[in-house]
């Protein structure tokens, strides 16, 4: 493994530790889970007894240290709400999240990439104006609103697709499109501006001057060199899609990690919050490492520097 990747991995681990520590402290500040876990009217003694059973009566530092020690071993404790290991509660939601995020990202790269490249190639034309307008709308449309509208049109009015839920490819279409909307628009806009920047560079002019056909200039000189910012952006978007699709998941009753974490925060299910955030942070770090790896493939200068 190249040295800079090793150091990025180290940084990533420190970032994960930092995130779970912040989450540990902040979730403890939310208050007492016992009051939500027991029915209204529970006595103080009953609440105390439950806190003892959940290990919440121990000093905070001790709770934190045992949390860290166990977390390293992959044990995030028993969920307060689900009555089983918090990590398995999170991991069983991961396939749904990965499927949704993967589809949204694929749509984003395919359509966003095509649209962005077209807009750059046809600079100043109606195509560029149209792509920019649609992309602006795509970025500005709240996913909540878009999701409900798609449900009303395609599920209620036309009856082509289910209103929500999880299981078949039909269930995937509407949430994937909703989630892809922002991603597609972001990639289209960034690729266009990045390509326009590169097109002004001297070596592109040189390539034309050498008499290379425009298609070759666009693919090899402009395309490849304008990818770096787009790859960075796509990495960030991928991380966000994997961890932060709670709104889309809620609108479409999609059993993903984002919705799970939100629910766990509301019910103060600390182990699930901690496990969920640790998993999402790990994915984020993993995606960023992948992005670093892609840099070295795209840009020989980065490869040589390391």
């Amino acid at each position, binding site marked *: 493994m190249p040295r800079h990747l090793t150091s990025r991995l180290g940084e990533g681990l420190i970032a994960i530790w930092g995130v779970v520590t912040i989450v540990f402290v902040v979730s403890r500040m*939310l*208050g*007492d889970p*016992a*009051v*939500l*876990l*027991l*029915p*209204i*009217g*529970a*006595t*103080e003694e*009953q*609440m105390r*007894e*439950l806190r*003892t*059973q*959940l290990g919440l009566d121990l000093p905070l530092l001790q709770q934190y240290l045992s949390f860290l020690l166990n977390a390293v071993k992959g044990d995030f404790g028993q*969920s307060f*709400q*689900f*009555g*089983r290991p918090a990590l398995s*509660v999170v991991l*069983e*939601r991961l396939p*749904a999240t990965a499927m949704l995020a993967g589809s949204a990202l694929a749509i984003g790269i395919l359509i966003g990439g095509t649209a962005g490249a077209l807009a750059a190639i046809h600079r100043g034309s109606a195509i560029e104006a149209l792509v920019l307008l649609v992309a602006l709308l795509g970025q500005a449309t709240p996913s909540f609103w878009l*999701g*409900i509208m798609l*449900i*009303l049109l395609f*599920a*209620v*009015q*036309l*009856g082509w697709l*289910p*209103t*929500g*839920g*999880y*299981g078949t490819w039909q269930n995937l279409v509407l949430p994937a499109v909703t989630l892809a909307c922002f991603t597609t628009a972001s990639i289209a806009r960034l690729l266009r501006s990045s390509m326009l920047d590169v097109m002004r560079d001297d070596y592109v002019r040189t390539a034309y001057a050498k008499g290379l056909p425009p298609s070759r200039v666009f693919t090899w000189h402009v395309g490849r060199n304008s990818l770096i910012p787009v790859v960075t952006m796509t990495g960030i978007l991928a991380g966000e899609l994997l961890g932060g699709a709670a709104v889309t998941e*809620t*609108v*479409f*009753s999609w*059993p*993903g990690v984002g*919705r*799970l974490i939100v*629910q766990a925060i*509301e*019910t*103060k299910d600390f182990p699930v919050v901690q496990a969920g955030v640790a998993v999402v942070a790990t994915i984020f770090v993993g995606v960023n490492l992948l992005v670093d790896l892609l840099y070295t493939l795209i840009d020989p200068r980065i490869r040589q520097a390391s």
Partner: protein
Amino acid sequence: MSSTSLLPFRASLAMRTSLLALSLGAAAAGPAAARDLTIALSSNVNTLDPFKSTTVGTDLSVAAHIYTPLVDRGPDMKLRPGLATKWEAVGDTAWRFTLREGVTFSNGEKLDAEAVKWNVERVLDPKTAARNKPWFASISEVKVVSPGVVEFVTKGAYPDLPEQMSMFLLMPPKWTAENNPAVTALGSGPYELVRFASGDRVVLKARKDYWGEKPAFDNVTFRIIPEDSSRIAALVAGDVDLVTGFPTSEIARIKASGKVDASSVPGTRGMFIKLNALRAPFKDTPKVWRALNLAIDRKAINDGLLDGLGEISACQPLSPTYFGFNPDLKPIAYDPAQAKKLLAEAGVANSLTMELEVPTGRYIQASDIAQVVASQLGEVGVTVKLREMEFGAFMNKYIVGKNLGDSAYFGLGWPTLDAGGLLNFWETENPQSYWGNANFTDAAKAARSTNDPAKRMALYKTLTKQLCEDSPSIFLFFTPITYGQSKGIAWQARGDDWVRAMDVKTR
């Protein structure tokens, strides 16, 4: 093809499939087709273990299809025999239940007095960390009188033990020890578990060898659909048959679709404003409490925000469904002039400022209602500062922190539908009381110390009257339970949060 012509195409397709079904039915003429029911729930089913949750609307409702209680509360809110055929109080400190003979769990384990005793012991064992323990903590001993008779000895009187037992879902001892009841289930109820996909759905099918009345549906699916609009869309699109718990304003819109029905029943959770009488500005100010009560136009709020579907409180925390409801009390009439007069007499004319804490995400239309309350109080010269906060944060401040603001918009129901549990919240020692009144507390304790219905009824009459006239509480209304259903089914709607396929019939 115009865009609207797509709909007739769908209709004709539906017609063709139904014709096909008819011809197939005629050809087969065999057993009736399997009847399916899909119910949408608004929050997640977290566990199937009935001891690890007290959320009636989700976890317990689902578990109640698989496990059965000793006593069942029907959709008419009356108790009826379940696993027990009869029950009676033995003096003031015990209840005796006679069990149905020959009932077993679906794995063959006997459901006898020993099994019932084991269940109570499991709840009370601290290691279980049972969430429903507070409901049964007053049971001090379970006596197995005979295999068919069990006696619960209680610490003091426990008049609503049979009602509480309607929420006690019995588990098979041996099976529970060998399995993780959080993710799997096996009981003595009308349904058995097919699949539990947390966050998505719970799939059940009817048991062939169930001892009780056969339910109307062979297959029941609970689907988790948290978002109101999506839940309604799923109903209208025909993906689900029954949905509950959306804003009242949606009822008309759902009906307008022409495809499904919608309605509501009065709920059993009373909404009220609790004034913190332990500190200024509401410490020892009965005139101000009274003035605020008179300044709120409950009917206007009910008509304006709840489409008139709420049930205005008869100046007490109990709805007519509760044991102990006082029929002599009437809702407080709106009288802003008298309110202003009382505020002037108390020396706070146009000078009273109060915080109103509003927990969000829990009670129907809470923010809207609190804003109207604030503006109505504004009209008699009281300045209200609204403090919205997330429900968990509010509960922490209110119960654990013992630090309620000047007042809060709050809802309170008691699962046994008995006055005892509810009135307890106004007793001085209760950390949720925020009011100290020795007379009230003594009488409430006396009412709790007997199982005799006549004595209790008489005491509750005085207690509710006292709450109405002297307490720092502004009783508002019982918010409705809204529901929508497909045309093929009829849910016997109930106001106490239980959602069970057993309460649904075909039509």
